[in-house]
């Protein structure tokens, strides 16, 4: 809860500051926005790590291969990075760049999921 309050406080203060700066220096405002997003992620890092550790320990107990979860975590990470960076580009009015990032993110997520896809396809083949 305290982490969320910190994140919210930093984000709101940073956004207000960004609005003030944006009139005179839009580049600095953009840099501030990116910094705020990174700070928010950094502050939430411990929470995210606790959640992933818990899921990994549960998967260990259920004897589920860690490779399966790693792929899910990586894909979620790719989705987060893709979305944030694309939104930053859109905020800066660069929609085409944002679309390019989203496309690259989609292919990266697919590439990461490929081993899992192959495994599942193999399983389906063995079932049928």
């Amino acid at each position, binding site marked *: 809860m305290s982490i969320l309050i910190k994140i919210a406080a930093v984000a709101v203060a940073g956004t207000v500051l960004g609005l003030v700066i944006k009139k005179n220096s839009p580049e600095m405002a953009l840099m501030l926005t990116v910094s705020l997003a990174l700070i928010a992620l950094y502050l939430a890092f411990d929470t995210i790590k606790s*959640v992933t550790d818990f899921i990994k320990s*549960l998967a260990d*107990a259920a004897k589920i291969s860690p490779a*399966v979860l790693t792929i899910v975590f990586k*894909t*979620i990470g790719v989705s987060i990075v893709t979305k944030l960076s694309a939104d930053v580009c859109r905020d800066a009015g660069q929609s085409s760049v944002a679309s390019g990032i*989203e496309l690259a993110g989609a292919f990266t997520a*697919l590439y990461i999921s490929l081993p899992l896809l192959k495994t*599942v396809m193999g399983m389906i083949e063995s*079932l049928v």
Partner: protein
Amino acid sequence: MKKAIIIFIMTFVLALLQMPAACAADAGDVQAAAMTAEEVRESQAEALETDKLENALPGDAGSLLGDLKITDSLDLSGGVRKLLEGVQGGVGDAVTGGLKSAAVILIIAILCSTVNTAFEGGAKYAILAGVLAISAVSVLNVNAFIGLGSKTLDDMNTFSRMLLPTLTGAAAASGAITSAAAKYAATALFMDIMMSVAKSVVVPLIYAYTATSVAEAALGGEGLTGASNLLKWLTKTIMMGIVLLFVAYLSLTGVISGTTDAVTTKALKTTISTVLPVVGGIIADASETVLAGASILRNAIGIFGFLAVAATCLFPFLHLGVNYLLYKAAAGVSGAIADGRITRLVGAVGTAFGMMLGLVGASALMLFISIISVIKVAT
């Protein structure tokens, strides 16, 4: 002249034989009569080779029932208590194992859906990864537990090949010659059909259903939804059809041949008593003892078989049942939070467990009905 001498000698011998029996009956020596019945039962058990049946118990059933003998199993409540005591330890393991898998699946579903919702549907590849991860985990479980179900079917089939002839022999010895044979034929035929259909049709259909459900969750599409629904319907219809046919066939043969047996046995006793005026009654009484002994033995084998079949399918039933319930519960919970594709996938895996549970249950039910119908033969 020779014939007259032979008839005279035979009559004399029969009269001599009749005297001690008549004396015993007159003296009311109940203990001696009981011992005779016990001896009759023992010799019948030897003739039917019930010890082979005891040794034919499948591994899990053997460890659950311990060194249960056919004579012990007359105490049904004791046998059931033994089963319940044996299964108590397994319940915790089954629930814990299933719960862990279900929890991991649920957390993956929630995690992927949370990210997707936070980004207003912008993280659909996270959902795809989630679907694939859940597929990998659940298909492994489905494979393992369907394998367990198939092994249970094999065990039940092998045990039924020992149980049913022995039970039929005992039932025939107790006077139900026609109905026991008819019921054995029906059970053996339908068990064979059930096992063949289960192995070559139903289990592949369950696998195919799981595969199409996974493909549907990963790729989407109405065609795959239709295919998986069709496979589910087909599996359920085939299983229901076989069980209904079996029950109908068994009822029909039971009614006809049971009446035939009752009439035949009664007619035989009356004929013996009437045709042989002096010794006829004694022979009829002796046949009564033999029939009663065989009836007791038939019931004992039936109860033993009942307990053995229950012990064989108890653990697989427990594991499949727990997984079925947990996956259905996980699908219900994820329905409130997770993406529809993930919910449908988890639900479909639960349904696959349910279908295997139904298959094992239907086979066990067929054996139970056979055992009960042979025990309850009208004589």
